């Protein structure tokens, strides 16, 4: 390979690596921030100590997740320039303002109120503290709104004009840019994915503690809440995913062809390939297990509708098929497994065995990481599936990269890999340690708990004091 090709490949590897790591944290913190707002709101409304206790339990976890999301996110906002400078120069006038709005409307909001949320419980009133929690939760959602608008514009660019110097320039309407055709679908699909990721993580923690002590009130409450989310949101997500797929078929048909493994066109209805091994050299799927005409039924709602295949796409515009094909199957399988667990929990509820069915708890525990895996798989489908373009159909990935020497990118990639595995590896370990401790109503602070002069310790003491008070007045609710 030429040096430039190496540099491009390494830059792509670095972006994929850093964005994949980063995505895991907001996928968790978007849902967790909303969950914390719900818990604190319920605590304010009902006064039940179990909500305050769960709030405090998950707040510690949120702090670690959020910190990792922030620091890995700053890398992303600079990497557009360090490694994709030609893309930045050309697309900057269109996507730059959207990203600036993300900073102004979301990042500052989150960061400004996070301090009060984490350390301010004894410094501001309860309602003001709840407002801070809500501000942080709103910030995570607004952030998703803008960055997914940017990503969607790169997938389905609209509302731009081409400048004489090769730049994409904004057209008369920013609405056309922000609400580009794939954005509403991608936003709904991604935010639901974040909620599901959180629900299954929370559910697994609840299940783990139920397996050890099915009477733990905190574990019961969080498991029940998580399973409601699974039962309601997972089916919604399947519907949302279907709509998103149809939208992709309309605007990025080559991506859907790769997802389906359709190398050939099917004029009389395309089969749904359940499993198989895509063979790009021979342009066919080996060992395919397929349902005749089912793909046409899903995508066109007509079993006999013709479906075009990758044979209609010029080779130089084709995405890599194998990775998109597999990632799509992983995502869909996990989505159905999530809905299945949700249904099972409804059955358990109906039989009054929600807290008393170890097999269900074991299944929920196993499904704990499913949201993270599904989110990454979905991200791979949409990002690899839009190759070989950065701005779909208009700007090629190969023409987007910075003029950097391969050794420079190799060195940075190696350093990123080393630092990320050590730092985020330690972070995940700390998260698991926090999750391994059961939520106890009057659990003493662990010896290694934060000792913060104006920090979390007094806040917890206040919380605990209030809980005790509530317990006394309400006769031991928690």
């Amino acid at each position, binding site marked *: 390979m030429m040096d430039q090709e190496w540099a491009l490949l390494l830059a792509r590897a670095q972006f994929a690596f850093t964005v994949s790591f980063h995505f895991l944290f907001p996928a968790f913190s978007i849902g967790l921030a909303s969950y914390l707002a719900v818990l604190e709101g319920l605590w304010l409304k009902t006064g039940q100590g179990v909500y305050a206790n769960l709030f405090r339990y998950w707040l510690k976890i949120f702090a*670690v997740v959020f*910190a*990792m999301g922030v*620091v890995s*996110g*700053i890398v992303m*906002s*600079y990497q*557009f*320039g360090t490694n994709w*400078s030609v893309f*930045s*120069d050309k*697309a*900057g*006038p*269109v996507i*730059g*303002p959207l*990203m*600036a*709005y993300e*900073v*102004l*409307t979301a*990042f*500052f909001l989150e*960061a*400004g109120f*996070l*301090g*009060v949320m*984490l*350390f*301010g419980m004894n*410094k*501001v009133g309860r309602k003001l503290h709840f407002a801070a929690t809500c501000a942080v939760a709103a910030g995570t959602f607004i952030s998703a709104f803008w960055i997914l608008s940017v990503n969607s514009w790169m997938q389905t660019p609209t509302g731009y004009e081409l*400048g004489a110097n090769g730049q994409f*320039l*904004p*057209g008369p309407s*920013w609405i056309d840019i922000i609400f580009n055709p794939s954005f509403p679908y991608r936003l709904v699909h991604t935010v639901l994915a974040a909620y599901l990721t959180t629900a299954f993580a929370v559910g697994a923690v609840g299940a783990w503690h139920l397996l050890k002590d099915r009477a733990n009130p905190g574990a019961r409450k969080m498991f029940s809440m998580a399973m409601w989310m699974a039962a309601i949101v997972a089916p919604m997500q399947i519907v949302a995913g279907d709509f998103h797929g149809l939208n992709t078929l309309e605007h990025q048909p080559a991506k859907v062809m790769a997802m389906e493994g359709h190398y050939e066109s099917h004029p009389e209805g395309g089969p749904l390939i359940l499993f198989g091994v895509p063979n790009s050299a021979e342009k066919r799927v080996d060992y395919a297990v397929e349902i005749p005409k089912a793909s046409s039924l899903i995508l066109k709602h007509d079993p006999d509708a013709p479906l075009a295949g990758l044979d209609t796409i010029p080779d130089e515009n084709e995405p890599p098929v194998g990775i998109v094909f597999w990632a799509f199957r992983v995502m869909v399988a996990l989505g159905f497994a999530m809905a299945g667990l949700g249904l099972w929990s409804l059955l358990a509820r109906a039989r009054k065995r929600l807290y008393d069915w170890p097999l269900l708890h074991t299944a929920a525990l196993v499904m704990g990481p499913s949201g993270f895996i599904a989110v990454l798989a979905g991200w791979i489908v949409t990002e690899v599936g839009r190759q070989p373009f950065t701005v779909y159909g208009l700007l090629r990935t190969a023409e987007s990269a*910075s*003029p950097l*020497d391969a*050794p*420079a990118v190799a060195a*940075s990639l190696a350093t*990123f890999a080393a*630092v990320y595995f050590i730092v985020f590896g*330690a*972070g995940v370990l700390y998260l698991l*340690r926090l999750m391994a401790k059961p939520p106890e109503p009057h659990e003493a602070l662990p010896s*290694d708990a934060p000792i*913060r*002069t*104006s*920090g979390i*310790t007094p806040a917890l*003491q206040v919380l605990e004091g209030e809980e005790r008070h509530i317990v006394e007045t309400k006769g031991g609710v928690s």
Partner: protein
Amino acid sequence: MMDLTVIWAIIIAFAIVAYVVMDGFDLGIGILFPFFRVGRDRDMAMNSVAPVWDGNETWLVLGGGGLLAAFPLAYAIILPALYAPLIAMLLSLILRGVAFEFRWRDADHRRWWDVAFTVGSTVAALAQGIALGALLQGITVEGRAYAGGWWEWLSPFTLLTGLGVVVGYALLGACWLNWKTEGALQRQAVTYAGRLGIVLLGVVLLVSLATLSLEPRYHERWLAYPSVLATAQVPLASMIATFLFYRSLSRRKDAQPFVWALVLFGLCFLGLGISIWPDVIPARVSIWEAAAPPRSQIFMLIGAAVLVPIILAYTIWAYWVFRGKVDSEGYH
């Protein structure tokens, strides 16, 4: 002429100043961290910034994101040119940022996260200073792209500016601790502030003299008659600010030394502005050559005009919530 491009140059400059001022003292505390006693003093130093560091760092994202949005060509040239120092900065900010949480989560390895806090803070400051120096000494541009090698940023001058930023941030950190803490830690901070002030003045003087010899236009900008009458006010004002800084320090004032240190930083920025105005890449690309089209500028200006005052308001509120000395409540 107050066109949109000038307004945006001012907004970006404001974001960068806000970042340097606010994250400067966070990073400074990290730089000085190993000199504080393990235990109570270190915990207090970290607690004095724990609730606000994340908001402070966000100004860096606004600086970068704003540059992409308002001056995409500058973003596309500068970031590859400063590749190594910027990647080092990003990785350092990761170490610094997670250390805030991780050191409380793992008592067995707290020592290591304290080291990560210091190394991250120091290297981030050094990289920012090197980046500044590399911009001042000039980067190789051809057409719409960076055309130099991947070590072009490294020179004695950039190492000097890197040192200057490390010392400057450490000074801000020491002044912040003087303001926010009591007892032995405060006395230690006062001693450090006094020493760091002298070192900083020396480095700033060296950087200023070296800058004059970098580009003929810097020289002309500063020393040609009659503009020298105006530019000479900057070093003059710096001397006055230095005097007031040391006077407030010797009078054991809490907040004043920090304020005068900020004034010194402001004057350094003013000096930078005098050297490079109206370029976004000094002596290479002007702000008008790099500017985004008016539609992008107007769209963002509406948002910035509404949102920046709101952001400043709740940022001030967040500082207000955590006002006063970091006391020892919560210790058993």
